[in-house]
């Protein structure tokens, strides 16, 4: 089916070609485009721009689209581009040595200059200033895109930022810096000399608001529709049928309800919605012809289930592990901030009096303890806790909530009733429940 293939390749592309931006993103994109065009066309109009927004709201998409437009507009001659794009990422290039080498490498690749791997930090910095001046003489512009900007603003000496922004101050340079960050307070963490060189142009991309749930353009349903429907001019013979099917399945009341639930859980950022769309297309498979409500429902369920995965893991533990885990929860309830294996063992040993079938030796309990740590249901209380000293006394905390455990016990096929009541109540009466546990054996 052709429509399905088109949609799939579109959704896995980073710039989602053919998908219209929601109004807020479109406005920011237009602003950024105008800014960059200005920098390219008018010498001396260097600018810096900061884009802030929560993760998965479409910041990178917006910048990517703006840059793509810029490149298409000005780089008409492939042999000598007018605009050079240098992309840096805070996770990777926040160290100055790495950053300037990467800048040099990318600039060399774009403007066909030979790059020296062995160049030192000082050489690379000098090269940057030189090439920026030279490029200005040829009316060429460089756009620096700094993703994860907060990582550049984290080190004590923000050399990368300072040098880049300082270069922009010179009139003999034509460049722009576009910064992207998920932290709203990123301006505060900038050094004073860096902040004074940063022009305070910035935009904040907001998350989808709850009152906009059924907004015709920026609500989650509308976004899903724009991800999944075919634009004009593509696959004309099927377009109408496909779009109607998408529209109908999104109007389905069950889909609507499930989406609303997901939204209330905070799992419906634009990126999550994109993932839902991808899932839906995967569920459709290569055999299906039209997207139906059931595909979207399956996709929503998959996203939702990923959040419940802790319960699954609890439900697949052995009985002894569950006893130890419940012992940890009981101790937490008694007011212990952190527990250790000896405490857990003592708590577990108290159940011996209840005459149940699951009494095991201390080494077995120690292995169970270890497995709980492996499964991250217990976690070391401090960074050092797991390394130094005796392992029996290393302090750990239960990394699950009581509700999750009790749901996991419900789902567990073999969980003795005694264990459930041991979790639910502080004092367990030995009687009917213990007998039942024996009966199960």
């Amino acid at each position, binding site marked *: 089916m052709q429509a399905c293939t088109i949609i799939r390749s579109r959704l896995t592309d980073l710039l989602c070609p053919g998908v219209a931006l929601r109004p807020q993103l479109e406005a920011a994109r237009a602003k950024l485009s105008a800014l960059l065009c200005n920098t390219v066309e008018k010498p001396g109009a260097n600018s810096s721009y900061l884009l802030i927004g929560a993760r998965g709201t479409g910041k990178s998409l917006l910048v990517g689209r703006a840059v793509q437009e810029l490149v298409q507009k000005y780089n008409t001659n492939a042999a000598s581009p007018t605009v050079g794009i240098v992309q840096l990422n805070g996770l990777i290039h926040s160290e100055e040595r790495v950053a300037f080498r*990467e800048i040099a490498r990318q600039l060399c690749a774009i403007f066909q200059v030979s790059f020296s791997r062995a160049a030192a930090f000082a050489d690379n910095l000098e090269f940057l200033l030189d090439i920026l001046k030279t490029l200005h003489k040829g009316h060429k512009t460089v756009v620096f895109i700094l993703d994860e900007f907060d990582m550049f603003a984290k080190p004590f000496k923000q050399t990368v930022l300072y040098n880049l922004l300082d270069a922009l101050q010179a009139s003999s340079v034509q460049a722009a810096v576009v910064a992207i960050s998920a932290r709203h307070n990123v301006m505060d963490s900038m050094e004073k000399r860096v902040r004074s060189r940063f022009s305070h142009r910035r935009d904040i991309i907001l998350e989808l608001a709850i009152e906009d749930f059924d907004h015709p353009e920026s609500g989650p349903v509308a976004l899903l529709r724009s991800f999944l429907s075919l634009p004009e001019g593509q696959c004309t013979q099927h377009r109408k049928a496909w779009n109607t099917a998408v529209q109908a399945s999104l109007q389905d009341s069950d889909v609507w309800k499930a989406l609303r639930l997901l939204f209330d859980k905070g799992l419906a950022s634009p990126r999550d919605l994109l993932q839902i769309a991808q899932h839906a297309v995967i569920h459709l498979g290569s055999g299906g012809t039209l997207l139906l409500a059931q595909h979207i429902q399956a996709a929503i369920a998959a996203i939702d289930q990923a*959040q419940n995965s802790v319960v699954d893991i609890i439900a697949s533990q052995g*009985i002894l592990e569950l006893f130890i885990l419940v012992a940890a929860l009981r101790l937490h309830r008694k007011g212990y901030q952190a527990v250790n294996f000896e405490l857990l063992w003592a708590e577990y040993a108290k159940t011996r009096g209840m005459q149940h*079938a699951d009494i095991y030796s201390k*080494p077995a309990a120690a292995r169970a303890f270890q497995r709980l740590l492996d499964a991250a249901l217990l976690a070391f209380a401090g960074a050092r806790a797991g390394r130094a000293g005796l392992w029996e006394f290393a302090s750990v905390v239960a990394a699950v909530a009581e509700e999750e455990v009790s749901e996991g016990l419900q789902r567990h096929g073999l969980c003795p009733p005694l264990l459930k009541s041991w979790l639910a109540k502080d004092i367990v009466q030995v009687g009917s429940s213990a007998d039942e546990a024996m009966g199960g054996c």
Partner: protein
Amino acid sequence: MPPVLVYGGPSTGKTAVLRDTFAHMGIGYSYVSCIEFDKPRPLLQAIIGQLKGKKRKAADGYAGEGKAEQLADLLVHLQGMASKKEARRYLILDHVERIRDADVLAVLLRLREYTGLDMGLFLISQIPWGSNAYEFDTLRCPRPLQICFPGYRMPELLQILAKCRPEGDNERLFSIFLGTFIGPMFARCSSRIEDLQRVIEQLWPEYIRPVREGRIEASKQQQLYFAFKDKAIAAKELFESGLQNHASLSAALSARAALGASDALDFELPFTSKVLLLAAYICSRNKPALDRRLFDPSSRAGRRRGTMASDRQAEAAAEAKLRGPHAFPLERMLATFWELRSAQDEEPAGAAEQRDAQSGDLFMEISSLVSMRFLSQVTGSLSDAKYACSISDEVAEKMAKNVKVSLKEYVLYV
């Protein structure tokens, strides 16, 4: 394609299914285990080596072809690969939970965004994505698609274990054996297939022996059950899932004698070191306020207490024992050390000069104990360093016997 996370408990077949799927589809893939390479730099080297697929040579220390000192270098390599228009490559990263708080993971999950390389990335983890373990900044990594491998339920487990039946043995008896003994007794305490396999290997011949020897007919399950029940219970009591399993189970089967641990210390230390360690052990267990009562003869020994108070004290002592050892200053350990020595009557009382003369040696001993990891410095600067003692109760007990100190008199916890 977007990255995929495959998660589930141990031995649920995550790696095997993935591997067989690739084999079935006839696609090549690279496999890197994060247990082998749990530091970012070697991990990157391994990934590059796997993806570039060059042979490793002894000359460059088996470092592989591409050198990736930093993430930036990895990306450059991958960008180079992306421009070559080859078939899509697949990378399987096993045990990702090991690198869950490293930046490498966040970068790997966004490789496509950063390099344009369309690589199929499969992550295998014991920990689900939604759990707190990936909490460091979960949103920094885009959430991968997820496939869950749920743990086995008991019937499924027994079905798998039924495949362990030795060739030619009675199928019905084996399933009865699994259902009555392995299922309810062992599988409840460890659902690891490997552990259970080992138990079966050892218990099954015992169970079937009466039938083989012709003492009990195969159809009389009741008799078989009673003949074997005691052995199974003994084996279960000693069943410790793990490596020691083998020794303890066979011991349970053959002699069923309690494994009498020998009282001898199985390593040797200088006499002073042993006493020092004991002093450290006492300091780490006892509360500082107790020292006076223990070592100062002029303090009132044994105030009269009501039964309530002594009950409360015993409870507090038990609690302190469970809570574990605490750190102590060096001076306290030295004072305890001299008290122990003088209690042994080898030291004429009041030989302060002699103590000073020996203190240099003592500090040497202490530093060597630290380097042997018996003691460790936990907090503080040089002037008021606090030490922790990391020997277990059993070792301390043996050591005390070795140097003839009665620990019971000294370790009271409160």
